[in-house]
């Protein structure tokens, strides 16, 4: 369940040589605590989406047997490389509907990046280390960002106009669509939204050892 608490403030900024709008949001959990790793996406509603001609690239690293970053928002069509910065091998896979792939046991950087050509959430895992998990959020819009530790997020360089904005988090209970809000952004007036998201309790495979059960590599 999502509640919009506030819609306040007006900000104008200059982006490059053109006037652009800016949109900020604060995302909190049901207890009012700042929520990192939430993705906010803005979709223009008064004109068609225009995607950049050049294909983007991104990195999903593996450091100390964890995926870095935990949540990685990218634009649809982005090529993602999965370098392995550990001195152990990983076996990366995803069974998600919007992208199924497998990078069998490897060290270093695989020669071919993985192209995420459909919007949606792609859950990434390692077949060797069950606790390793990450989420690649494939956005259909170029206007997206991820909250920091303070739960704050800012979308720069938005062309002024009407937008539908929404928020997503790995533990979000309700469908992402239920978080939708309509905002009007102008070059003299932008918005700050505050979302309060109801989340599932965290359910991640524990990494720490249990007495009498030997660790894996």
């Amino acid at each position: 369940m999502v509640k919009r608490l506030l819609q306040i403030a007006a900000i104008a900024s200059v982006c490059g040589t053109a006037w652009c709008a800016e949109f900020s949001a604060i995302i909190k959990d049901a207890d009012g605590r700042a929520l990192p790793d939430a993705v906010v996406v803005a979709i223009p509603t008064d004109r068609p989406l225009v995607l950049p001609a050049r294909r983007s690239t991104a990195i999903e690293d593996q450091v100390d047997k964890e995926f870095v970053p935990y949540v990685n928002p990218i634009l649809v069509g982005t090529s993602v490389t999965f370098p392995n910065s550990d001195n152990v091998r990983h076996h990366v896979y995803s069974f998600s509907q919007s992208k199924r792939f497998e990078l069998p046991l490897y060290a270093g950087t695989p020669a071919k990046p993985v192209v995420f050509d459909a919007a949606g959430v792609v859950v990434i895992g390692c077949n060797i280390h069950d606790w390793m998990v990450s989420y690649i959020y494939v956005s259909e819009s170029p206007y997206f960002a991820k909250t920091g530790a303070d739960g704050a997020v800012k979308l720069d360089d938005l062309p002024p106009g009407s937008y539908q904005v929404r928020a997503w988090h790995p533990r979000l209970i309700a469908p992402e669509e239920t978080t939708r809000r309509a905002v009007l952004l102008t070059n003299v007036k932008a918005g700050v939204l505050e979302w309060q998201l109801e989340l599932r309790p965290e359910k991640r495979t524990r990494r720490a050892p249990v007495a009498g059960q030997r660790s894996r590599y």
Partner: protein
Amino acid sequence: MQNTFRVLIVLSVACASGNAGAQWAVDAEAMRLYDSNVSHGQLAGDVVGDSLTRVSVAASRELYAAADSSVALTGDAAVTEYDRFGNLSNASLRATLAGRSKLGIGLTAPWLELSASAAREAYRATLRNGNRFAAALTGGRRFSESFDAQLGARYDRRRADNDVPDSIWTSGRAFDLQGRSLFAQANLAISPSLVASLGLSARRGDVVSTASETPLIWAAANAISPDPAFGDERYAYRLSGAATRSASLTLSWALDAHSSINGRVADEHTRAHGDFGYHSKVMAVHYVYSR
């Protein structure tokens, strides 16, 4: 004994000279444990409890790895110090070779593991010194992020260095033991930090108990030897075909991604022919580190 050392040396050399891409895992554990019946005594006068401190380290190296299987060699060393019965204090070295195969891709894919180990055990009371061998087949599956379970079968054998008969009528190899076990374990994550683990096992085979010498022991035991670890006029006697059932509950609290503090209680019942048997309770606190 020499053969065991040869095996350990060969395995160690293989471990040290493995392929360049080999991977390492290190585990360390410090444990404080109380056992209500460390002598495995049946009569009230023979039942003695003791506490012990054990420190162990293990290093594992992957010798072979493919997408769905791996072979690893683990070497571990442990030192155990008893509070009251110091002659039970011991040190051990063990090498374990384990092959593991995951039957599919993903979090919930089941796995199988076949392992074999050889260990050398050296006690302060050298009469108990010996070598221990074990082989196990284990299968497991993670059903969700918070629940996994495993089942297995195990064969264990212990070969003592010494044959010190108490009389010419019986064997003195009371510490030569072998048995077969079935075991099961289930782990449930109650919260991101707390895991509850339930273990059950049933073993049939030889057990060794220590008691004062009585005619009943002579009738039931197939090997008897003095056991100075528990004092003078104490004898270790081996009972064959004994059935041991044990259950344990462990609560494990993660301190961080690499370490945890664990509390464990266990209950063990053994029954042997001739109405012999014993019961023990164990309480332990473990600190476990894994990297």
